[in-house]
């Protein structure tokens, strides 16, 4: 009897050991998954940095950042200035934000505060589907539909310009902005609204003066994430903005963004030349731009959570 009991105890102990082992196994498995993401990010950054490094040995940072002409295969010698494409990228991105931010926040406010729950249940998933449309399809729409339309409206000879790119990118960043802003607005405590309404404010006043400011940090983070998507988008702008490398002077000019330049030139560049390393250098600039935007949105989100 005694023997049996001790046997059981040993068995249980073993079992417990086993399950503890299994538990720590799971723990390490998930830890590895988490580390993998960091490792990949670090790896990409390292790769960009080491491949871009030889470029800066030959071209001064000043020429790289402050001159306008990017023409590594020029007839009379190469030139490596990224000013035009950085300005083009910023122009297209901010144009997109100019359209997407008011539209996105208004839509989010409507969904969170005004729309009936039934309607919201239908519309929100539909907006999320919009995020799944491949960028090449959106670019195609830019060429076939939006381009000719813009040409007619603006009275220009063609519609492959910065406005076209901005409009398409605004469509692409809308789902991010709407869904995240809607979450931010919905999570504003109901007491705020009740207090406002109890003081005699109407629904509109409550929305503008109470709910939106209270959810502001979440909304800003949503906008930043949408912007990150717009900056890095390649296929759509490659197809719809015309890719003229000239320094843009207005929104009706054709522009060539950083992403388009890399996509066009990486296919034909001889490896390990200044041009090759130069493409990594502009990739590094792009990485830093999106990294900065994401960092800002992350900081804002963190602050927002602390307030909660």
């Amino acid at each position, binding site marked *: 009897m005694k023997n049996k009991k001790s046997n059981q105890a040993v068995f249980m102990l073993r079992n417990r050991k086993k399950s503890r082992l299994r538990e720590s196994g799971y723990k390490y498995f998930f830890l590895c998954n988490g580390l993998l993401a960091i490792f990949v990010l670090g790896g990409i950054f390292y790769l960009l940095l080491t491949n871009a490094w030889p470029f800066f040995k030959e071209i001064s940072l000043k020429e790289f950042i402050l001159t306008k002409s990017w023409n590594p295969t020029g007839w009379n010698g190469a030139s490596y200035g990224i000013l*035009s494409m950085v300005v083009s990228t910023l122009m297209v991105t901010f144009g997109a934000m100019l359209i997407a931010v008011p539209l996105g926040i208004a839509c989010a406010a409507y969904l969170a505060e005004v729309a009936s729950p039934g309607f919201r249940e239908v519309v929100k998933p539909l907006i999320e589907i919009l995020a799944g449309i491949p960028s090449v399809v959106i670019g195609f729409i830019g060429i076939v539909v939006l381009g000719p339309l813009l040409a007619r409206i603006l009275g220009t*000879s063609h519609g492959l310009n910065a406005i076209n790119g901005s409009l398409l990118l605004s469509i692409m960043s809308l789902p991010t902005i709407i869904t995240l802003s809607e979450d931010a607005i919905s999570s504003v405590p109901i007491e705020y609204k009740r207090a406002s309404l109890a003081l005699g404010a109407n629904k509109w006043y409550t929305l503008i003066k109470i709910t939106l400011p209270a959810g502001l940090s979440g909304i800003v983070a949503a906008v930043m994430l949408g912007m990150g998507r717009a900056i890095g988008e390649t296929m759509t702008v490659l197809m719809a903005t015309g890719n*003229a490398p000239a320094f843009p002077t207005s929104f009706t000019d054709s522009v060539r963004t950083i992403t388009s330049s890399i996509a066009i030139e990486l296919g034909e560049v001889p490896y390990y030349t200044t041009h090759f390393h130069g493409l990594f250098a502009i990739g590094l600039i792009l990485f830093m731009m999106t990294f900065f935007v994401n960092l800002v949105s992350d900081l804002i989100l963190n602050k927002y959570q602390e307030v909660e």
Partner: protein
Amino acid sequence: MNMRKGLGVIVLVLVFSLLLLGCQPKEKEQGLSGQLQIKGSDTIVNLAQVLAEKYMEEKPKVAVAVTGGGSGTGIAALINDAIDIANSSREIKESEINQAKERDIEPVSFAIGMDGISFIVNENNPVKDLTVEELGKIYRGEITNWKEIGGDDREITLYGRQSNSGTFAFVQEFVLLGDYSDKMMRMNGNAQIVEAVKGDKNSIGYVGVAYVKDENGNEIPGLNVLAVSKDANTQAYSPLDTESVKAGKYPVARAVYQIIDGKPEGIVKDWLEFVLSEEGQNIVETEGFFPVPSNLAAENDENLK
């Protein structure tokens, strides 16, 4: 679970062994058999592919493999003795010939067709012909308004290819002799340029001749194909006029080549005879190129002997 896994493995093994069986060379009978490796120019990779398919229909025991990579890549592979035939959309360079000779390779070039670039404008544009010099000035950004070359008072919109295109390089070398205007829009492909020019009254673009012809060889609607003259004193010719391209009168045309090592023998000789035959040249034409002009054809015959 294990059963299923086992089954999966068996199926995989079966599939692979079937694939391997399919790859095994069939037993030899009379007639030519063997392999032919062709590599090089992206401009003519499709043409070479179609030629290879037709050739293999006639000579089922010969396997022809065609890959792209660019003219330079193809010629380098020939010099390294990795392939049988190099496709090239330009003449072989002196330096490449020297490199080849160092390795005991004797490159012999065969012109297999002509590639013409057509310059196109919108159908409403009154300009019908231009000289090569004018085209150069337009694309370098020195002429920016159509009225300077006899058209309406409109600013010119430039359409061209991206720098990874052979056509981009060809036009730059033959017409511009300088940098493209940074106002030129870099389009993704020939078809996109054709569509843009159709919709843009101020436009000019350049594309391969195949893209401005329909199945019957007529000009497609919506655009005009410009006639081009060498200089102000010579007559302008249209790239759609096959006879003048063949006679070498259209100025923006170049021969495309296949380059081999030494005297053609065996399969290589048979292949080249097929490509240069009437049947082969018909394929060259249906693929949007022009047949070999008579002066180059004579050279080919000499090299084939």
